[in-house]
């Protein structure tokens, strides 16, 4: 029996989920923690249309909540400092950095991640365009690139190549797939200008 790359990563994710299970314990320590320390915060928000309720340490970022608590690992942790854009998601329909968003602040908000933009088996036009134009190499920044691009495609003021590059400057690609990312976004915006 052969193991596909996807299956391998699925198994690897299960292992890392085991590691992630330590986090409630960390939270419990924090809850009982030092004077002035933090208790858990109850927060309810929608993720990809589904209601989710979490009891979390207020230090937990949306990025970690998505990956470690909600098993939505499509959103990637690049720099974890708001500098690379790999963790880009939509909150109330705006692209933001999940690594600098505390999950506790999301009461009543609607979060959309890379897992939530396709229509069933039908890819989002931006996802399709990234495949058509090979808009990635290693793929690590890709979910963030696509989440940014989905919003840029909707912005009528962003038209020229330079405007697209400027609008995408918060998403870094170490492989340097920028030319193909640009072509993908132009396709998703609808043809040549």
């Amino acid at each position, binding site marked *: 029996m052969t193991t596909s790359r996807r299956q391998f990563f699925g198994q690897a994710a299960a292992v890392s989920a085991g590691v992630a299970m330590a986090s409630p314990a960390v939270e419990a320590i924090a809850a009982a923690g030092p004077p*002035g320390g933090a208790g858990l915060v109850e927060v309810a928000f929608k993720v990809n249309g589904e209601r989710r309720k979490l009891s979390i340490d207020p*230090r937990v970022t949306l990025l970690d909540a998505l990956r470690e608590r909600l098993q939505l690992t499509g959103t990637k942790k690049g720099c974890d400092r*708001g500098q690379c854009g790999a963790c880009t998601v939509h909150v109330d329909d*705006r*692209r933001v*950095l999940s690594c600098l*968003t*505390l999950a506790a602040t999301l009461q009543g908000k609607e979060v959309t991640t890379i897992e939530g933009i396709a229509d069933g088996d039908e890819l989002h036009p931006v996802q399709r365009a990234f495949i058509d134009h090979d808009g990635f190499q290693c793929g690590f920044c890709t979910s963030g690139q696509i989440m940014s691009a989905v919003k840029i495609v909707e912005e009528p003021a962003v038209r020229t190549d330079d405007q697209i590059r400027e609008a995408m400057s918060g998403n870094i690609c170490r492989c340097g797939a920028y030319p193909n990312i640009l072509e993908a976004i132009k396709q998703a915006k609808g043809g040549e200008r």
Partner: protein
Amino acid sequence: MHAFDYASPSSVADALKLAKPGSAFLAGGTTLVDLMKLDVMTPDRVIDVNGLPLKGIRLHTGALHIGALERMGDVAAHPVVTATHPMISRALLLSASGQLRNMASIGGNLMQRTRCDYFRDVTSACNKRLPGSGCPALTGINRGHAILGTSDSCAATHASDVAVAFVALEAQVVLRNKDGDRTVPLEDFYRLPGSTPERENVLGPGELIAEVVVPTLPWARNSTYLKIRDRQSYEFALTSVAAAVNLKRGVIQDVRLAAGGVGTKPWRLRQVEEALKGSVAVERTFADAAESAVDGARPLAHNAFKTSLLKRTIVRALLDAAGVR
């Protein structure tokens, strides 16, 4: 990250009541969460102010009023702002990235901390982070540091772009505390480092920025914000200049100039403004006037280039704003 209590009040009164020494207000989080991760900021209480009614962008009694919780991207795109104060819009659009501009608030932008690497590294000494510990930047790597307003304690630049435009436009900040409101010119809101670089502004403990008020200056429609940096996008300024020019038959009636990337706070260039008033708007005049911008500048080992870069940035910004290219 150090542990903290979290509260999300829905009224300003409740937010001010929750504030205590060691607490921090959280708006967009793009500075605070970043610096909490680095242990540079270690509040034991975080008060989420995003539910407070400090929003709105409107023209009222001869001034543009911007609620402190308005997001950078929304202010930049607002039709009133682009029509009446284009340099504000320009300064915002040249800041950060689209994602950060969707998150960061105007009040938070004014409160952002310096990007000095020694400040951001808790293993380094830093008089701003740990008063009295010393300033490694003065003798270390200081290419990005300030040449104006520095002291023997600190040479960190103020990182905001829009604050430079606000200072040029003589904007005021409305500060709210338990006793009511007070209004302070933004230029005076910021303090020079002197021997107490840890005290960056005049905000009292538990005091909130409620709004920014920018007087309407009809001729400031001829304005620009020019930002020079190591890469074309998503980078802090080496130098920047906000410029607005009131021209009559080619002669400068009035002018506003402020600089970023060079000062320990947003730097109004009053002596350059005075030198320009009544002069003919040509490049030679601009260059002569720009000389006085660096009076009193104290370059460090790696940032002396900023003295000539600042003068050239002023000239180019004036050429753009006056439309005499």
